């Protein structure tokens, strides 16, 4: 006996104890596909035959079955299942997960079952058990289909069982092997001329011959119709003829629409009301031959509720498809595909209010659908409705896949008056897109808990729950509007610890690191001692609204590395942003990058502007205390210097005093009073992204040079970062780099940042560090303490591990670029926010903050 079952189904084995269910399951299914009640009994009670554990065992069985079905895996239930009460929950389970329930019945002679049980040590129960079960089975067999089993296979002899084979059949909707490219076409509703025009525009050649139209698609492409070919429009038979032909010849796929199905029922002679334009279809088809009518019935009857294409990446259905229903088959799935879901309410026009499934859609597959006319197709969480109401005088639209391009032709006329005006012409176009409206509020389940974020650059990055906990507080209490937060900068590791006397860091180690990673050319950029700032600036408030969904009239934002607004005063911020905007404009960058917005990675100086509190409460007091106490100590020691033990201390304390003075000098260098914009300096060093592109594809020299142009436009505010490129294979070049660093730090600079020439550089294993800092000797007093240079201190400080810091830097770097990529690709805000939130969460990992 050949048993054909759908590849995704819930297979219920039915038969009394001893009929050979388990052996049958072992032979035909993978061990993990089979859940046996005996096994579950063993799980909960350590005894597979403990009947008192039956109830718990079935709880476990159902639980496992649920998990498997939810994940879309074929599941076999190996239990007697001879009672209707036992089968009922299984049928319900199959329905819940939209898979087909299949019954395989082993109706073997009672005697045989009993004998088999007798031969087993662990099943010493009387003949009445099998007898009862067999009776129950016989009573059940006829009702199985009524109970909801879509396929029932019964075997009555051991020979039949032995000879059985099982074939798994793909679901009709599974076209994962079809990879496209496709042209997905919206609701046609008999608009034949527009369809021809659209196909023409898409590059399809239509030849009309005696045998009807023949469509020749452009190279390798195929059309997919989202349904509702019929009703309302003027050329229903023509449209049907064309589409049927294309489907027949394999140049098109078609899913059914609700109108198509209603027409089919009418043509089959059912009693259907001639409303919503059905009368047009009926009238037009009546003029055709009966053969044509039969062909239409057959065509419509064969349509499959929805299709899953391209390895699961594309789903086409008439009214949309929720994630949990994709690729499944049940009455509910079909209903959803045809009608969508309604909330049960009706609107002012008496039409049912549709449940906005797309707003909650989180699936990976792109869903293309139609059914409800919209003025403009809009992306929402990877779904798009391409029914642009051609028959109502709108247009006929196609989506090119995978290009995601929309192509449409306008309706030649209004063929049918819509009850509900879908082209709200009297109203101005909505200010925000549907996606932006949805993104106005983010969901907490998209950020909290343990998360694993897939990045293009690195690999998947895990955010631990406790880190997300900290980030939630920071994000909620201090961060600016998430719509502006498209990036948070990564942390940066220092170079390896220098072996030179008196130094903790030196360019040699940075150069050596990159050389060992196989990077031959690096860029050294002057490191600024200010505060890291991300600046997003738009050409105007309009661009801020259309691209960022900002309705408050702002043209940009300037935020810190934790997403907090830099400026407390809105007026100062807008003045500042306006200056940056003008500089970008003067430099002609809007045009050269073809963009209306730009995101810059910068350092904002002075340090004291943001670190006021820290300076007042930690840095200055330490300096003040040291400079007050050390002279007193020196005086006391000097007075007792006759004692040789003390004489050595005097020296040491003089050195300490000197270190304290140097320390105060160090921090003062980065402090000045800020009274207005004129006192601030912004040093941009990366052009992170602009419309359509993340500039990580450009090398750092491009970044530096383009930014220099912008800085030139407003040298009062913008600071051009000096840089030097170094060929690491050329010793004299390296020496130049070292000398440059020495100059920078001798005059009190913080030091420099060494980056591979390419923004993203592959190292020996995975990514190389995107940047490594080499900080100056004096600057490091601020980090490691006033007296860190004292030999016995330095010696201890030299033992420092960089592993954790470097790993963190890479993960944050990958997340940062990922968030930009997602933003640039216009993904929903939650997807961008996930990465931004992730960087903030990673920042709460305990890594030595001095690195």
């Amino acid at each position, binding site marked *: 006996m050949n048993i054909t079952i759908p590849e995704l189904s819930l297979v219920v084995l039915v038969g009394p104890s001893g009929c050979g269910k388990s052996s049958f399951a072992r032979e035909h299914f993978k061990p993990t596909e089979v859940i046996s009640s005996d096994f579950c009994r063993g799980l909960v009670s350590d005894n597979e035959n403990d009947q008192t554990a039956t109830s718990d065992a079935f709880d476990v069985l159902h639980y496992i079955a649920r998990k498997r079905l939810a994940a879309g895996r074929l599941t076999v239930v190996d239990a007697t299942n001879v009672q209707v009460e036992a089968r009922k929950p299984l049928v319900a389970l199959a329905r819940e997960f939209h898979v087909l329930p299949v019954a395989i019945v082993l109706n073997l002679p009672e005697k045989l079952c009993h004998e088999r049980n007798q031969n087993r040590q662990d099943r010493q129960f009387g003949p009445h058990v099998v007898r009862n079960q067999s009776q129950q089975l016989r009573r059940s067999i006829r009702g199985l289909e009524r109970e909801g089993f879509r396929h029932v296979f019964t075997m009555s002899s051991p020979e039949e069982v032995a000879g059985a084979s099982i074939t798994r059949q793909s679901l009709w909707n599974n076209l994962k092997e079809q990879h496209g490219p496709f042209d997905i076409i919206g609701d046609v509703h008999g608009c034949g001329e527009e369809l021809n025009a659209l196909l023409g525009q898409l590059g399809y050649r239509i030849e009309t011959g005696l045998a009807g139209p023949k469509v020749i698609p452009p190279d390798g492409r195929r059309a997919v119709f989202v349904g509702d070919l019929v009703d309302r429009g003027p050329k229903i038979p023509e449209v049907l003829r064309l589409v049927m032909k294309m489907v027949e010849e394999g140049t098109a796929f078609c899913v059914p629409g609700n109108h198509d199905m209603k027409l089919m029922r009418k043509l089959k002679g059912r009693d259907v009301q001639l409303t919503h334009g059905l009368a047009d279809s009926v009238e037009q088809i009546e003029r055709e031959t009966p053969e044509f009518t039969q062909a239409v019935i057959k065509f419509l009857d064969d349509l499959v509720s929805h299709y899953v294409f391209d390895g699961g990446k594309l789903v086409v259905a008439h009214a949309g498809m929720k994630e949990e229903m994709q690729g499944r088959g049940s009455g509910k799935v079909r209903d959803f595909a045809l009608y969508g879901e309604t909330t049960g309410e009706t609107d002012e026009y008496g039409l049912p209010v549709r449940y906005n499934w797309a707003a909650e859609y989180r699936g990976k597959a792109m869903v293309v659908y139609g059914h409800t006319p919209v003025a403009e197709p809009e992306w929402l969480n990877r779904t798009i409705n391409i029914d642009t109401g051609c028959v109502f005088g709108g247009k006929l639209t196609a989506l090119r896949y995978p290009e995601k391009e929309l192509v449409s032709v306008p309706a030649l006329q209004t063929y049918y008056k819509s009850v509900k005006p879908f082209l709200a012409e009297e109203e101005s176009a909505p200010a925000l897109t549907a996606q932006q409206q949805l993104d106005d*509020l983010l*969901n*907490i*389940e998209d950020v909290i*808990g343990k998360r694993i974020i897939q990045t293009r650059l690195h690999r998947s990055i895990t955010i631990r729950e*406790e*880190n997300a*906990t*900290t*980030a939630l*507080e*920071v*994000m*909620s*209490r201090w961060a*600016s*509007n998430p719509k502006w937060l498209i990036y948070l900068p990564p*942390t940066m590791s220092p170079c390896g610890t220098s072996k030179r006397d008196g130094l903790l860091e030196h360019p040699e180690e940075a150069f050596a690191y990159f050389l060992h990673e196989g990077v031959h050319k690096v860029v050294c950029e002057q490191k600024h001692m200010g505060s890291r700032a991300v600046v997003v600036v738009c050409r105007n408030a309009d661009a801020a609204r259309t691209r960022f969904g900002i309705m*408050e009239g702002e043209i940009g934002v300037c935020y810190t*590395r934790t997403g907090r607004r830099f400026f407390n005063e809105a007026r100062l911020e807008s003045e500042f942003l306006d200056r940056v905007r003008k500089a970008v404009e003067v430099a002609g960058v809007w045009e050269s990058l073809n963009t209306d917005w730009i995101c810059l990675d910068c350092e904002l100086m002075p*340090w004291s502007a*943001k*670190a006021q509190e*820290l*300076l007042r409460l*930690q840095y*200055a*007091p*330490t*300096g*003040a*205390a*040291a*400079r*007050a*106490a050390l002279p*007193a*100590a020196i005086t*006391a*020691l000097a*007075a*007792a210097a006759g004692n040789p033990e*003390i004489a050595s201390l005097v020296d040491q304390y003089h050195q300490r005093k000197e270190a304290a003075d140097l320390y105060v000098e160090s921090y*003062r260098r980065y402090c000045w*009073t800020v009274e207005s914009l004129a006192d601030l300096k912004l040093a941009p060093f990366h052009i992170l992204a602009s419309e359509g592109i993340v500039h990580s594809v450009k090398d750092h020299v491009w970044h530096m040079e383009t930014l220099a142009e912008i800085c030139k436009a407003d040298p009062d505010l913008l600071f051009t970062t000096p840089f030097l490129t170094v060929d690491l294979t050329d010793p004299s070049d390296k020496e130049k780099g070292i000398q440059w660093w020495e100059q920078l730090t001798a005059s009190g600079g913080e030091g420099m940042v060494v980056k591979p020439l390419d923004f993203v550089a592959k190292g020996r294993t995975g990514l190389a560090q995107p940047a490594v800092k080499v900080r100056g000797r004096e600057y490091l007093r*601020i*980090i*490691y*303490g006033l*007296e*860190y240079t004292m030999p016995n*201190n330095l010696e201890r*400080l030299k033992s420092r591990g960089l592993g*954790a810091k470097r790993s963190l830097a890479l993960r944050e770097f990958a997340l940062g670029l990922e968030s930009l990529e997602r933003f640039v690709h216009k993904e929903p805000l939650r997807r961008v926010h996930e990465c931004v939130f992730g960087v903030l969460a990673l*920042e709460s*990992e*305990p890594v030595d*903050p*001095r*690195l």
Partner: protein
Amino acid sequence: MCPAQTGHIYCPKIFEGRSGRALVLPLALNDQVRTPAQLLEAESKQRLQLRFLHCPRIISTMLLTITTTHNPATDLGYLLHKNPERMHSFELSFGKAHLFYPEATPECCTAALLLDVDPVGLVRGKRGRHEGGTLDQYVNDRPYVLSSLLSVAMGRALGTAMTGRSKGRQELADRKIPLTATLAVVACRGGEPLLRELFEPLGYEVNAAHHPLDEKFPEWGEGPYYTVTLKGIVRLQDLLNHLYVLVPVLDAEKHYWIGQDEVEKLLRKGEGWLAAHPHKEAIVKRYLPRQTQLAREALAQLAEEDNPDPDAKEEAHSEEEMKMEEPIRLWQQRMGAVVAVLRSSGAKRVLDLGCGEGKLLRSLLQEKALTEIVGMDVSYRSLEIASRNLHLDRMPSKQKERLKLIHGSLMYRDKRLAGYDAATVVEVIEHLDAPRLAAFERVLFEAARPKTVIVTTPNAEYNVKFDTLPAGQFRHKDHRFEWTRKQFQQWSGRMSERFGYGVRFLPIGEEDSQVGAPTQMGVFSL
């Protein structure tokens, strides 16, 4: 099964069911994660342990000198048990202390105790405790100021002298002699007045030289550092004990954990003088910072010793109380009003959004009519404290079933908040950035949509009545705005219109005819 059910791993799903169990806060955040505050410091590039930001600084001098002009002055060596000819060094956990004599003549003798604190060791020493890096700072004033570290050093170097015993000069040790102590430097938050208040009653002439924080940046304010000279005719033992107790008191922060034995130490070193000191309460409280229970015990024991004037005690106490009670009464009134409104709404299932450390939750638990109480806060640490304050772990299971604590944010839509009868948002909105109120409004009124919403916020007009509050300043450092009654009512009106709630207003606290009540409340109902 969800592992959260075992209580070990925090799993948001646990909260989805309405009959979910009360949250046992499972994440121990200490040491594994940076706190939000530490995270924020990333902005300023260098992070420091916040403890030093919020608390007065450790006060201590690097150098203590004690000079006597008693003739022969070199007898000081006998009193200190330290030979003036030599340098004496001591190894301490935080570095070294050296005792030496810059001057030793019969006319004048000076002993110097120099603390040589090791800044690197201070931080690195803890390696074992925090694997992978500590968050303490290398940039720290501890090496340069005399703090409780001085007391430790004194204990080591001058322990015998502090007991008043002297080999060979016992008579001198028992006598009052002219002594001058110089402390370079101490950090003193209370400034010169505090120094005088502490030392003058003990008979010292106090001279304090102030050191500026940074003369180049006067706008950063005055620093807390002083070089202090104390001159008096006292027993050396007394001087040492005064310094031992009072130097740490100048700064309420101590560098080590404070336990019961600290009380004993305080009483021992304060024997004979502390009980009579007019500021003994302040001294005890600052010596035992944030350990009110310990401070109370110590004060009780001091009272036994001294049996002070009951009137004076009463006076000091009521002054303290006045300061304390005003806000407490307002709090109680606020909670009273919230509970009253909840009662009148007939709510059974209530959300306390921004529950903080659980003050309101405690009152809500007393309300028998409430069958489900959910406290939510964005600060996990606050929830931990709330859980502790409410004794969640020891709560009877019936009671515990009514209460859930959840970590969440009013900036994100949250399914867990849907379907409740009422929500209280007490003194929360003023902590949200005004531009982000838009998200809060939708989260609360549109997504969570409780039938009744109670919002309270300060009435900015009333601020003029707070004497201690400078004009234009908010009541709390974290307040992002404070609204007048008109502003609050306009906002509430907009909410009511936009989301279809009715709204009424209630004043909380004593109402002033001009500026209204200190707190304003809006009650929104569907």
